[in-house]
């Protein structure tokens, strides 16, 4: 990094700390905050999509589809999310490889050999010859899917509730104008439901932020992984020996999360005010009165 950091053993005080905090390992730690932000940025829209599908399925007239929607939306109520996080990535990985093995491998070789789950080289996902970043991305993608499934179910709950909360009269008016059910959905129900869905979705976003450290449980090298790795006491086998500093690293992570949730709350307050205007709700009424 910095030229004067070449021999850390001779450094002292602030220079030592500067060099320590800019070591390659620390840079990876700083980058892992990006991993968390990317996870949030990718998971949120995907989960919203899943949630939308789940909510639509729960309202469907087709009974099997409705049952599927109901089961999907209620499963996260009964089962702790961490179980999904432990289960879904392994299950998906094995499922993908099994499917690919059907396509590319000799079918006479069994995939489960005793304790082992072995597919031929061509069916491996990702191929073992692919560079390390592909493996990392694949692991991360499985994590995203696990998060999206769990938070999609939460979102489906919220959206389903919001759809039923749209005043019936508004939908009936639309029908009276001769709109088809699909048109009612697209032009009235979906635009109108957001104001009812926002409090729940805002809450969900907060839960999602607070669930990101579970990436560590999935074996992704996230901030918790690096905090534990960096904070653990180091003998002189390392360039920067020190005692047990984990508490400082975790305090830094705590500050990061508090900042994230605090900032999100500010932003949601603004959106809430914007969405409330002109709505037939208490907040909308208050805004109308304030304006006149």
């Amino acid at each position: 990094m910095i030229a004067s950091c070449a021999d850390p053993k001779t450094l002292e005080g602030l220079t030592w700390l500067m060099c320590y905090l800019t070591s390659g390992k620390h840079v990876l730690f700083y980058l892992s905050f990006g991993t968390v932000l990317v996870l949030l940025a990718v998971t949120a829209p995907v989960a919203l999509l899943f949630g939308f599908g789940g909510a639509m399925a729960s309202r469907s007239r087709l009974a099997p589809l409705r049952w599927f929607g109901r089961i999907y939306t209620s499963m996260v109520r009964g089962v702790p999310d961490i179980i999904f996080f432990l289960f879904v990535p392994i299950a998906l990985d094995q499922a993908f490889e099994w499917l690919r093995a059907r396509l590319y491998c000799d079918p006479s070789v069994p995939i489960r050999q005793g304790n082992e789950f072995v597919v031929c080289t061509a069916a491996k996902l990702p191929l073992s010859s692919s560079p390390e970043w592909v493996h990392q991305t694949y692991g991360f993608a499985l994590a995203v899917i696990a998060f999206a499934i769990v938070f999609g179910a939460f979102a489906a709950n919220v959206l389903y509730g919001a759809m039923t909360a749209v005043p019936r009269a508004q939908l009936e008016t639309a029908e009276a104008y001769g709109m088809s059910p699909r048109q009612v959905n697209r032009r009235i129900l979906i635009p109108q439901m957001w104001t009812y869905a926002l409090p729940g979705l805002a809450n969900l976003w907060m839960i999602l932020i607070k669930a990101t450290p579970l990436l560590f449980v999935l074996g992704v090298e996230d901030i918790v992984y690096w905090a534990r790795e960096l904070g653990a006491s180091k003998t002189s086998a390392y360039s920067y020996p020190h005692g047990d500093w984990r508490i400082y690293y975790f305090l830094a992570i705590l500050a990061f999360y508090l900042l994230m949730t605090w900032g999100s709350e500010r932003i949601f307050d603004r959106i809430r005010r914007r969405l409330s205007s002109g709505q037939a709700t208490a907040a909308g009424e208050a805004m109308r009165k304030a304006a006149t």
Partner: protein
Amino acid sequence: MNRLMLAAAALALSAGMGMAQTVRIATEGAYPPYNLVNDAGEVDGFEVELGNELCKRAELDCTWVKNDWDSIISNLNSSNYDAIMAGMSITEERKQSVAFTQNYIPPTASAYAAPDAGVDVTTAVVAAQISTIQAQYVAESGARLLEFATPDEAVGAVRDGQAEAVFADRDFLVPIVNESNGAMVWVEGQDNIPLGEGIGMALRQSDTELKAKFDAAITSMKDDGTLNQLISKWFGEEGVLY
């Protein structure tokens, strides 16, 4: 040393050409000096250097993967990588789920370290890393076992007074005891307990071809003395040579 650096350079070259078979080797990266993550954030340590040399000799193209200790065997069997070099002792129990190459470190001693040399390790609270032969040994000894996910958490537990002693590979504990200024000492009469059949590379049982290649490479390194050089380099005078 220079030869090894050349070897690494050659490995990098051959990796660039992508001719050889790719083998992914998993390690924990938290068990110095066997394996560690150095300050540049890369895996390093005795096993990494050894593994790179073995791959060169076996004409394989190797990459390193970090994996948590407690899931390291199950991820091998579900084919996330092809080999494990993570200070894993060869035991009968593990042989049921994975295949081992011949050992690349002779049967080593495990040891108890504690703040107090006189502690009775059969009744004390002893910290060990989860699913290691040491943890099993402690559980069978009748002592009260505290399990931790990583070895340095186990050592930390003794420093904090949660456990009265820690039981781990002697080689891992040597620098910790030496640098503790007397805060950690060897438990009297319990500092040299032979466990297991040495440390070897773990492979899937179906990968017999790969096992033969690595076995041959290890033999060649034992024969020309390079393995002993490596052991001395990383473990110092305490290291047990072939």
